[in-house]
């Protein structure tokens, strides 16, 4: 059933993913069968989606509505293809450059204006992806949780 939903996804319009527009958040909510709650912060708005599978996704939107960061935590790895949108291929390319004696237990990718940090452990996966050039002034990486 979930598999069918994923296949259909490829025919849907662009979702409110990293670098996209918050106005399509309702599509995410429907696709992920999630609850949605929005919190206004001084420099941005956090749209928090909670799925039936226990995944919490936070999308950080600038005052213009552009999503400059997403973060997640939950019992399974998230669908990064969905969350990263057009930046997913940049992530895949950056991920290929892993080296001998590299980090084990975290995953860190900086590629083509994209930063992705993945951490956690089995049954508890956390991470964030952001576009450093689009983060509003004064907002720190540590705020993107």
């Amino acid at each position, binding site marked *: 059933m979930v598999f069918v939903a994923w296949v259909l996804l490829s025919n849907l319009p662009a979702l409110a993913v990293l670098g996209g527009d918050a106005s399509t958040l309702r599509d995410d909510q429907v696709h992920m069968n999630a609850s949605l709650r929005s919190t206004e912060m001084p420099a941005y708005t956090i749209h928090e989606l909670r799925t039936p599978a226990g995944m919490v996704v936070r999308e950080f939107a600038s005052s213009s509505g552009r999503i400059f960061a997403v973060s997640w935590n939950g019992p399974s790895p998230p669908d990064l293809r969905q969350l990263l949108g057009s930046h997913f291929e940049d992530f895949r390319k950056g991920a290929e450059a892993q080296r001998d004696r590299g980090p084990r237990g975290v995953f860190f990718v900086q590629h083509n204006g994209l930063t992705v940090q993945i951490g956690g452990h089995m049954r508890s996966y*956390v991470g964030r992806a952001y576009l450093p050039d689009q983060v509003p002034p004064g907002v720190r990486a540590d705020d993107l949780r």
Partner: protein
Amino acid sequence: MKFSLPLRFGISSIALVLLGLQLASCGGGSSPSNNMIPPATSGNNVQPVVVNSGPANNYANGIFTSVTVCVPSTSNCQTISDVLVDTGSYGLRLLSSAGGGALTLSLPQQTSTGNPVGECAGFVSGFTWGPIKTADITMSGEHAGNVPIQVVDPTFSTVPELCQAGGVPENDTLQTLGANGILGVGPFVQDCGNQCTLTGISNPNWYYSCAGSSCQVIPMPLAQQVQNPVPLFATDNNGVIVELPAVANPVSTLSGSLVFGIGTQSNNTLGGAAIFPIDSNGNFSTSYKGQTYPAFVDSGSNAYFFLDSNTTGIPTCPSNAGFYCPASTANLSVTTSSGSVSESINFSIADADTLFSKSTNAVFNMLGGPNSGTFDWGLPFFFGRNVYTAIESKSTPGGVGPYWAY
């Protein structure tokens, strides 16, 4: 439900607590612990472990052991060396010879309505894919019978699209896995747990029934999921202790012990260790400069992974961007806590590019890197500190698991 994201605008100060005197006392990366006793070396519950560069010679701070698997209820067995000891996962996974691993023993396949069952298991550094099989497992004098394990095998059926949507690489070869397998001896019994027993959109898509090259998600009963073998032992089954000596400088190899049971024998008493109960997700807390972060203890992580450069003031490395490269050794002080129990931890981070400049070294007590708003107490935390992992629902002299103690 509490929702708060603290705002901390402005430029952070250089966030290093300079505690230069801390280093001398325990030989390096971490502060002395109140339970520093030499690793146990004898007993029917003591399994030797070694920290080195692993079977592919590409690991930093990899902790490995040997595991014997047998076709259930037979003497048809194989001992697999260089299996990663991982307190951050649950269950045994062995790399097949098809993936370049050591496992050649043919084990019985688990099936669902006649089709082989496969699994896409989520690890942070990459997923493992392959069939679920059943084995008897022996380590030191301990035995667990009929245990579901994963055989990591890139040639099994076809990796489902859902498995690849996580974006992390497929770690199905000796080069990518860096080990002949992973022994998950963390605080939980099954690798996935209740979520994987559900149907529909609540199922996280780990277990599949595979007809030929076509795999469909299936709900998986708890008892058929990949199992941590320790709680299945007849004795010494309430947890493990990872015991490694302190190291002062990078070395090529470090020997220690994986001890089964907590308070079940004279060689696995809690001693003066502080007990930190963990939540249903397997986390406790660590605070740094007044901010509290989720945290966990993970022998399968190969460094102290915490925070980010902006928050810590420690730059990442020019050539190894996943690690920190401070201009001079950075000394940090944080507090680990759970409920009313807390303990201050002092640790040090050195320049990873410099640490890696000598190619024969594989044990690094001051290796650190950035993370995602989380403290991951990886293998350097274990050096010179006996770390206890108590398994969920199991009784110990320190209370019922799950908890960490050190």
